[in-house]
């Protein structure tokens, strides 16, 4: 499909970006990878009121244009690389109306790149509920951009957003947020001059990120390095100064446009739930029960559809054997290709149920509580609280679990998690275990209660976990961490899962 206008969705994590993307594009979407990196690239199409088609690109959630993890580094590359076929004509910045202050940091950065911007002020219903009063017109006037108040979950304001996209300006009209040149005047001048740039913030971003971005050549990167030395540019100090300047702009803006009631945070429902879910004793018991329930349902719920799929393949195979003449080619197609296919397809129900569970746990915000609870324990063996998610996912399938490790910022922690995730017994190993155990282990009861074969199977699972822990510990000693690990992470408010997203 050919698109008339390319629109990128940019925003913090947990702002409802994916919900908005799904509502805008419906089923008309495609998931792939960004060129050169295994970061999910979701694109879709949306019909505008005047008959044009907009291509919508969902960029990974990030708190700032300075990347902390692999997925986040995509955002600047897509926004800034003029030669990239995905470079957007328009950016929709999604802001969480209940937490405008932190959300606006990213907006001011994107706005300073001088790409045409629209603000989607999401979660207006929640903001209203908690008594936050936003003067949208004044807010829009002060920033110089269209602001669309909406609530993506309730699909309120979607039409207005579509209209705003339709009538969006082709040139960036937003007001300056901070004086970018003041951060490193000489360096910005020099880079702008040599690389023929008209945007000072773009030049500053190049100075910060020239070592990691792929769209400038090694020679250009070296030249920037030389210039940085010449003007004694210190990347972290400059970033700090920029952030402080941006927040003082934001505070001033919010002072005039937003009124927040002073309610005690402790009274919120989320906090009450957390008291139980991250409790010293109950927290772990509940987590264990959730896991138990998850695995129990994976095996019991999937039994019926798995049988159906297996029967279907057996039926197809037996029919084909009757129709086709016997011979090596028939053997290859029927017993090889179709037989092989059936061996794989049988596991689809199990994997689908596991993914549904994981997406519910992530969506509600429970996963980040688990991360919070487990971090200390996981760190002892060289892992990270965030390794819990891939390790649990590893029980279903190691491949997507390894892909999900890219949210772990620290290189060493990520490497160790990647190495040990395949050691966890995945669902495809289960039939092999069952078959071998049936052959080797006698089917009799020990200690009246336990079946010897059942014990052997449990033993294999325990063994896989122990081996993962031992290997992680060994790698912790072998691998040299290049960067320091840190665990600065948002704990989102509990929300109901979006059942539509689970189904996808």
């Amino acid at each position, binding site marked *: 499909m050919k698109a008339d206008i390319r629109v990128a969705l940019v925003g913090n994590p947990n702002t409802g970006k994916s919900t908005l993307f799904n509502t805008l594009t419906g089923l008309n979407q495609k998931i792939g990878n960004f060129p050169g990196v295994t970061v999910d690239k979701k694109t879709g199409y949306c019909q505008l009121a005047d008959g044009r088609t907009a291509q919508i690109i969902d960029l990974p959630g990030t708190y700032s244009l*300075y990347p902390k993890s692999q997925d986040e580094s995509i955002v600047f590359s897509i926004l800034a690389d003029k030669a990239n076929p995905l470079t957007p004509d328009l950016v929709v910045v999604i802001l969480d109306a209940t937490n405008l202050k932190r959300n606006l940091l990213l907006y001011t950065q994107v706005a300073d790149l001088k790409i045409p911007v629209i603000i989607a002020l999401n979660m207006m219903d929640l903001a209203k509920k908690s008594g936050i009063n936003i003067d949208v017109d004044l807010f829009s006037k002060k920033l110089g951009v269209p602001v669309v108040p909406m609530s993506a979950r309730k699909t309120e304001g979607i039409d207005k957003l579509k209209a705003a996209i339709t009538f969006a300006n082709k040139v960036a009209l937003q007001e300056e947020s901070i004086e970018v040149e003041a951060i490193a005047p000489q360096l910005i001048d020099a880079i702008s001059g040599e690389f023929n740039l008209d945007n000072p913030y773009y030049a500053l971003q190049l100075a910060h990120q020239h070592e990691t971005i792929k769209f400038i050549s090694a020679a250009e990167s070296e030249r920037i390095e030389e210039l940085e030395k010449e003007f004694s540019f210190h990347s972290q100090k400059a970033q700090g100064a920029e952030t*402080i300047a941006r927040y003082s702009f934001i505070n001033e803006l919010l002072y005039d446009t937003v009124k927040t009631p002073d309610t005690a945070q402790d009274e919120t429902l989320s906090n009450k739930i957390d008291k139980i879910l991250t409790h010293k004793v109950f927290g772990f018991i509940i987590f264990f029960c959730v896991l138990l329930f998850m695995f129990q349902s994976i095996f019991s719920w999937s039994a019926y559809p798995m049988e159906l799929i297996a029967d279907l393949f057996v039926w197809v195979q037996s029919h084909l054997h009757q129709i086709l003449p016997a011979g090596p080619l028939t053997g290859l197609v029927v017993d090889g290709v179709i037989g092989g296919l059936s061996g794989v397809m049988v596991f689809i129900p199990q994997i689908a149920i596991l993914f549904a569970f994981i997406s519910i746990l992530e969506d509600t915000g429970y996963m980040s509580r688990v991360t*919070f609870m487990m*971090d200390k324990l996981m760190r002892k063996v060289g892992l990270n609280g965030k390794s819990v998610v891939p390790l649990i996912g590893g029980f279903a399938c190691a491949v997507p679990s390894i892909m999900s490790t890219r949210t772990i910022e620290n290189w060493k922690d990520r490497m160790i998690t990647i190495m040990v995730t395949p050691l966890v017994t995945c669902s495809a190993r289960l039939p092999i275990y069952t078959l071998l155990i049936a052959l080797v282990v006698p089917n009799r009861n020990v200690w009246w209660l336990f079946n010897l074969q059942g014990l052997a199977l449990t033993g294999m699972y325990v063994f896989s976990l122990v081996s993962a822990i031992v290997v992680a510990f060994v790698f912790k000693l072998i691998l040299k961490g290049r960067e320091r690990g840190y665990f*600065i992470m948002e704990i989102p*408010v509990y929300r109901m899962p979006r059942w539509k997203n689970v189904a996808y």
Partner: protein
Amino acid sequence: MTLSELKKGAIGIVKEFTDLEMSVKLMEMGCLPGEQITVSRIAPLGDPIAVNVSGYQLSLRRFEASTIILQ
């Protein structure tokens, strides 16, 4: 006094940071000098901790909290 010494439920105001690299990340997340910060929860094993700052909840390890000096 640093944030890591703050008791659960206590309120402090961020003054400065002892670690430059960490400070850049913390400030991006809205943890700026002059900002009010409350310890809302401590993980079951004593580390990490969760704090309320800039209107939302942030979790960080004790070591990271020890780089934040309070007024």
